[in-house]
């Protein structure tokens, strides 16, 4: 129960509440057991005709009083215990979320979003059920079970023993079936995912489906998969529809035993008719705890399995973090240099960058070009330590960046990724994302620099326009410029731009590049539009992870390599567009 540590603090914090909750639960259980006693007394009195209407009023008011008290206590335990489980849920989810944010990009490359989402929802819910209903059902089962048996034994020991014969079958049966039920339930879920995926593919590939007129075929494929799903469901139902009737069956067997043996004993006057009826009532109370015992073990097991999965994530240490040597370096200016940097995404992956070395003075601009897959984006990712280098080192002002406090280092860097990340919220939220609490004039300034001002003016709510999840209402170019404004407003020391003008028109692109060139910070730009790089101080051309060419625009044009060829190509392309 190592992962139990995760929920232990919540139990400790809510110690008092749990004690109150469980006490109330126990009180309710006992009150519940008293009612059959009262019924017994009433029946016995009625049988021997030794009761008058006044006596019945007493019985009536006893039951009523107990009922009201039970209602009150029930409310309290539900609030305390179920409420506590909700608190555990909230706390665990917060913790998981917080922890995930500390993990590096590498972790997220290998983790499936769907899995992580499942941890955040299903697993945490299972834990909640385990600690909430699990605790309640367990307490209930033990207290009620023990007390009901006690009361029955008080009436007649031998009869009690007979009545209990079917009970172990209920516990064992519930366990046996619910284990299989869980397995088959997962099979049903898997079949459901297959179905979802099959439908998704057909809708995503609708053009091919239509162009090939394969609608009938697709229908029959989906039909098959849907039938498999039915089959899995039926397999599950075979279990569930045996489980519940089986439990009812066994508890009815107990009832039959009472009827037969208890009935005989009542006839031979060994027990009273009141005892007989009360026995039947107690049996009713006993059935639920027996079922609960089987059910609760599964609930707790499932909760534990989920807790283990969550614990595995929480145990994972962030692989990019401050080392012992890290200092909150006061001087985060100076030259940025790559010294024999090599990188691969994993030991069994091929090298993405090989022995890259260059030096970029403070305030200078570096342009990087190269065919797709040459390692340009990876190179940019290494600078803010989204990934750490495999070999070599990256230095800022001659200090290895691994030895600089991560948070202060990253605060100096602004990064604009290829795929701009826009979240649901207003445009203003999206831009001021990195530095909340800036003045509106700063905001307008950044927006203008990113050539976004006129566009935003055309939106109905201006900067307060809500953009929707992943920025659905924006065009690619608009998203890029928002991401750029987000970088500019930060006034960073180092600005990293990954293909910043790929989706904007030429005019806007030119305006943006002018702004960027005039910035006082160190800039690294990756671009497929070489015209954007022309004015950079140094240019690098990467190919298959190596530096193929480097130098100034003029030098590279002279050398007649990739850069010069591509440059000419793009000039003609531009001419074509103006044709």
């Amino acid at each position, binding site marked *: 129960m190592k992962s139990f540590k995760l929920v232990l603090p919540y139990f400790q914090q809510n110690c008092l509440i749990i004690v109150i909750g469980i006490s109330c639960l126990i009180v309710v259980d006992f009150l519940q057991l008293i009612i059959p006693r009262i019924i017994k007394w009433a029946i016995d009195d009625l049988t021997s005709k030794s009761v008058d209407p006044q006596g019945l009023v007493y*019985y009536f008011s006893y039951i009523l009083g107990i009922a009201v008290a039970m209602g009150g206590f029930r409310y309290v335990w539900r609030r305390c215990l179920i409420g506590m489980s909700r608190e555990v849920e909230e706390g665990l989810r917060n913790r998981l*979320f917080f922890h995930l944010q500390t993990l590096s990009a590498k972790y997220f490359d290998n983790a499936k979003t769907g899995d992580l989402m499942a941890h955040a929802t299903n697993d945490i819910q299972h834990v909640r059920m385990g600690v909430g209903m699990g605790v309640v059902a367990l307490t209930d089962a033990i207290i009620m079970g023990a007390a009901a048996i006690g009361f029955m034994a008080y009436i007649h020991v031998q009869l009690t023993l007979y009545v209990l014969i079917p009970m172990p079958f209920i516990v064992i049966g519930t366990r046996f079936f619910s284990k299989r039920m869980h397995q088959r339930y997962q099979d049903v879920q898997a079949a459901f995912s297959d179905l979802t995926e099959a439908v998704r593919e057909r809708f995503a590939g609708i053009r091919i489906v*239509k162009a090939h007129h394969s609608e009938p075929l697709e229908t029959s494929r989906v039909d098959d998969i849907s039938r498999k799903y039915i089959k899995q469901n039926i397999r599950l139902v075979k279990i569930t529809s045996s489980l519940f009737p089986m439990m009812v069956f066994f508890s009815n067997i107990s009832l039959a035993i009472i009827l037969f043996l208890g009935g005989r004993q009542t006839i031979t006057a060994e027990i009273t008719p009141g005892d007989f009826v009360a026995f039947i009532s107690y049996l009713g109370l006993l059935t639920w705890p027996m079922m609960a015992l089987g059910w609760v073990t599964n609930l707790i097991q499932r909760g534990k399995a989920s807790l283990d999965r969550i614990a595995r994530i929480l145990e994972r240490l962030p692989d990019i973090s401050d080392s012992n040597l890290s200092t909150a370096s006061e001087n985060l200016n100076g030259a940025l240099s790559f010294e024999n940097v090599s990188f691969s995404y994993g030991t069994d992956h091929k090298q993405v960058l090989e022995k890259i070395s260059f030096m970029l003075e403070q305030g200078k601009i570096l342009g990087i070009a190269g065919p797709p897959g040459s390692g340009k984006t990876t190179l940019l990712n290494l600078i803010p330590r989204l990934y750490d280098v495999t070999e070599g080192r990256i230095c800022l002002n001659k200090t290895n960046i691994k030895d600089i406090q991560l948070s202060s280092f990253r605060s100096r860097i602004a990064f604009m990724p290829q795929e701009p990340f826009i979240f649901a919220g207003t445009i203003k939220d999206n831009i001021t994302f990195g530095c909340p609490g800036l003045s509106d004039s700063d905001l307008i300034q950044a927006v203008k620099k990113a050539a976004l001002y006129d566009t935003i003016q055309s939106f109905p709510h201006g900067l307060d326009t809500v953009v929707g999840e992943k920025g659905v209402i924006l065009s690619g170019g608009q998203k890029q410029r928002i991401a750029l404004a987000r970088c500019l407003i930060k006034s960073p020391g180092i600005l990293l731009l990954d293909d910043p003008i790929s989706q904007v028109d030429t005019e806007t692109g030119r305006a943006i590049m002018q702004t960027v060139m005039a910035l006082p910070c160190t800039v690294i730009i990756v671009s497929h539009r070489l015209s954007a790089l022309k004015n950079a101080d140094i240019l690098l051309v990467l190919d298959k992870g190596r530096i193929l060419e480097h130098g100034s625009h003029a030098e590279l044009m002279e050398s007649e390599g990739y850069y010069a060829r591509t440059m000419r190509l793009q000039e003609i392309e531009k001419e074509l567009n103006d044709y």
Partner: protein
Amino acid sequence: MTTNASFFEEKQLDKAYDFRLILRIYPYLKPYRLMLSFSIIMAMAITVLNLSLPYITKIAIDQYIIPKTGHENDSHSGRRLNVDLSGHGVAEIVDRYPDEFVISGSLAMIEYSRLSRLEPDDLKVLRKDDLSGITFIAVIFVTIIIIDFILNFFQQIVMEYTGQKIMHDLRMKLFTHIQDMPVSYFNQNPVARLVTRTTNDVQNMQEMFTSIITFVFMDLFLLAGIAIVILNMSWKLSLTSFIVLPFVIYFSIFFSGRAREAFRIIRTKTAEINTHFSETITGIKVIQLFRQEENNYQKFKKLNHEYYQAGMKQVHVFAIFMPVIELLGIVSVAVVIYYGGMNVISDEITIGVLAAFISYIKMFFRPIRDVAEKYNIMQNAMSSAERLFQIIDNQEKDAPLESGMVHEPLLSISSLEARSVSFGYVKDEPVLKDVSFSLQAGDTIAIVGPTGSGKTTLMNLINRFYSPDRGQILVNGIDIRRIPSEQLRSKMALVTQDPFLFSESIKENILHGTRELSDKEIYSALEHSNCKDLVERLPDGLDTILSEGGASISSGERQLISIARAFARNPELIILDEATSYIDSDTEQKIQKALINLMTNRTSIIIAHRLSTARLAKMILVMKKGVIIESGTHEALMSKRGFYHMLNQMEKIA
């Protein structure tokens, strides 16, 4: 991150309940009415059996366990047991307890309260008949519970099977309906939403179906049954114990409303939490780089706390509802004890009736407790149903036939012509302007031009994914709007930029949408499409399953497979949207060769991004901004030194 609920919640339903929706499900039930009736009959039988159990107990108590009171003599003298002295061994026993028995004629009477003074063995002799009676009752009881068990099992299986079948039909109906929608529909509706409709929403309906049937035919029937049985036993006592019913109904309705509200908030918040989680995961790099972890965490924490509060509200609602319903249940037991007890005293009912009453009243309250839960399921299913039928009611048709449909089947494509075709996806934003061209069977034409010039749109029109706003596209001189689309499309093959492969085996992907091919034909398709090496390299060969999105093979190889797929269809007209993506030169050459093989002896329209591909064509159309600006053979266009010439210059440098 500010989250805006309106982005997650699709519009709320105006009316919570709409029974017209339930009526709409009826046609789907009809084919299964036999199975359904069978299941319902079994459900009723189960209810009857369940109701009989307390009744049997009552009989046991009244007939055998507790001796009848001596009405005929004196109702105030208490219960007595009468024994027949002529019975075997009875007289000797009566003789042994001279103080206890009062003898009158052939009968000996003993007061009930004095029975315990007798030896159990003696009582066994005296009450021989009662004992055999109770044995008989116990046997009946066991028989009933065995039948009950078996019926329950089969009822649930039949019920579930029928339900699943009905939902399967509904799902397939929905799937084919969506599949038959025009391509523009898929542009307006995100795939994820359509998938949710066909899977999750149908699933919700399934839950509703099962719970409605159990509710109506088991719970309501049980309630009615109990009411009838107890009214029969004693209508006065029944009516008195029903005093609590109005309160039960009132509280159920009141709390259902509250629970629904809490449930709705929880759902909204769950959606928001999920969105925030997935946004954080996809944007993790940016969040870390802009050091927004703390800020983002605070926002999440706030959201999570709102979820917690909504959850607590639900806990609160149930913490009141459940105890209140239980309380009312116990109150009615108390009423039965008091009022029923009075009736027993006045000898209007027997003790057995009283005991049975208590059992029935307890049974009565069991289904009522679940009402709120069932209400939620209904609520959920109703909104699903509404969304489903909204789609089914959308009668937009893919490639609708214009009046004057051609009745003769399209045997082959001998010519294709575009006549002054104009088209725009959005009104007043034309993508194609007055485009005309024609080709004969066996011709190859290539369309070249910069991105956004309308090349792919033209392909969409020939495929009938869209219809031209003005002008016509004619096959064999007939407007394609008058030819059934399946006839037209079955003569064509589409090879697209980003080939879409299914997560099935390579073989299934190649045979996609065609008749079964012989091994020889498949082999020849692989050979011509240059796929042989690829298939031989893979350990499972043709049976290799392509994982999600076909990720286990490279994008060039995916294109080769899509070419093999076109071969397998043996089409007359090839529409090729050439790939622009970066592919290594080796694969590139393989693709080129495969394409040349494919185009041999076929009519082809190529959207060419590489001019080397365009050169294969007899005629080249040069497009720019939706207009054909140049056309002719490669040589003619080159000598014209226009736009095409420039394009060629550009490629030479690259």
